[in-house]
């Protein structure tokens, strides 16, 4: 239940963070989260910055241009939105580094099964996608054509759809043979 408690605390904190509109308070919150992240802090911070980079850069640049043209530019807004997003992403990463989701879901055996199976299958299918991509790139001496890249997308999708059908049958049989559904 301890992990479930952390999840509930995280959810309350997230709502609290979105109710605060003073950049200084959010900045203090961010520093606190970074300090409490222990030895993982720089890795989590780097991961958080990378994951928000694309969307936040697009929004920030768009705001900069449009607000300047309309003479409505407020630097405070840029600080607010970027610090808030960074804080929320850091909180999420901090939570996932701190807790074991399987333990947190122990109150529901079905949900535990579901999440564990899904996480395992995600790893397996991600490897298939990456293997196809690597194999394709290693066979291309020059930039592949639109047609070739389209064919890659099709075969990758067919491969994971096929894998998913086989896996569903196999997992069901494996679970049944181990008496999972006997209760």
């Amino acid at each position, binding site marked *: 239940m301890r992990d479930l408690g952390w999840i509930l605390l995280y959810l309350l904190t997230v709502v609290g963070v979105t109710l605060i509109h003073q950049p200084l308070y959010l900045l203090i919150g961010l520093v606190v989260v970074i300090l409490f992240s222990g030895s993982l802090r720089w890795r989590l911070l780097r991961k958080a910055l990378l994951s928000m980079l694309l*969307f936040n850069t697009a*929004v920030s640049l768009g705001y900069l241009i449009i607000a300047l043209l309309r003479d409505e530019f407020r630097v405070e807004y840029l600080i607010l939105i970027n610090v808030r997003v960074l804080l929320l992403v850091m909180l*999420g990463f901090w939570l996932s580094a701190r807790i074991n989701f399987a333990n947190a879901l122990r109150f529901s055996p079905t949900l535990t099964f579901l999440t564990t199976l*899904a996480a395992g*299958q*995600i790893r397996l299918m991600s490897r298939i996608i990456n293997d196809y991509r690597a194999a394709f790139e290693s066979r291309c001496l020059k930039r592949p054509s639109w047609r070739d890249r*389209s064919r890659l*997308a099709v075969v990758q999708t067919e491969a994971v759809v096929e894998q998913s059908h086989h896996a569903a049958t196999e*997992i069901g049989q494996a679970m049944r043979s181990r008496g999972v559904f006997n209760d």
Partner: protein
Amino acid sequence: MHIPDGFIAPQFYLSAYVVTGGAWLWAARGLKQRLDEEIIPRLAVITALAYVIGMVMLPLPGGSTGHLVGIAMLAMLFGVRLAFLAYSLVLLLQALLFGAGGITALPVNAFAVGLVGAAVMTLCMGLRGERNPLPFLAAGTFLAVVIPALLIALVLGIQPAIAHRDDGTPLFFPFGPEVAVPAILLPHLIIGGVEALLTLAVWRYAKTRGWLA
């Protein structure tokens, strides 16, 4: 397509949780009685499929790439309820494990992409004839990408009106619908078109394997 955390006002995302929560209950209700050796692994595997389908890069004209949304394909293969639940679980895993999307954006993303996208595709599939189903499948896929994108753009576009300071400075997403709609919708018109072609290819494949009802 996903909205990240921090761009939606709490008064909107909390209300969205109520609405989407109702949809989750609806989708799970029929399944609860059938949570057996077939449904649990099937749902887990579809969830994984929904996740990795987003890793398939779509070639776009001009040499750039986008990524597959995949909800039309999931709806085509597994129906609205399973597609919606699987997509929602993926969004949750992405938010908590990979920092993509986000917990505050989850109900909006799940409702728009997972439920509306899947429902649009299923509706178009229901309209298809036996003789020439391809135009309906293509249109369904295209609309299952474009309509959720429009919804998400509108949700983002109303944020400045919902939450702003007294001087008008936005507190969350800064642009109104006049900027948000074209900025989000235009790329998705291309992604929807390319995804429609890919879904047709997968449909042919699934048909030869007997995976379609």
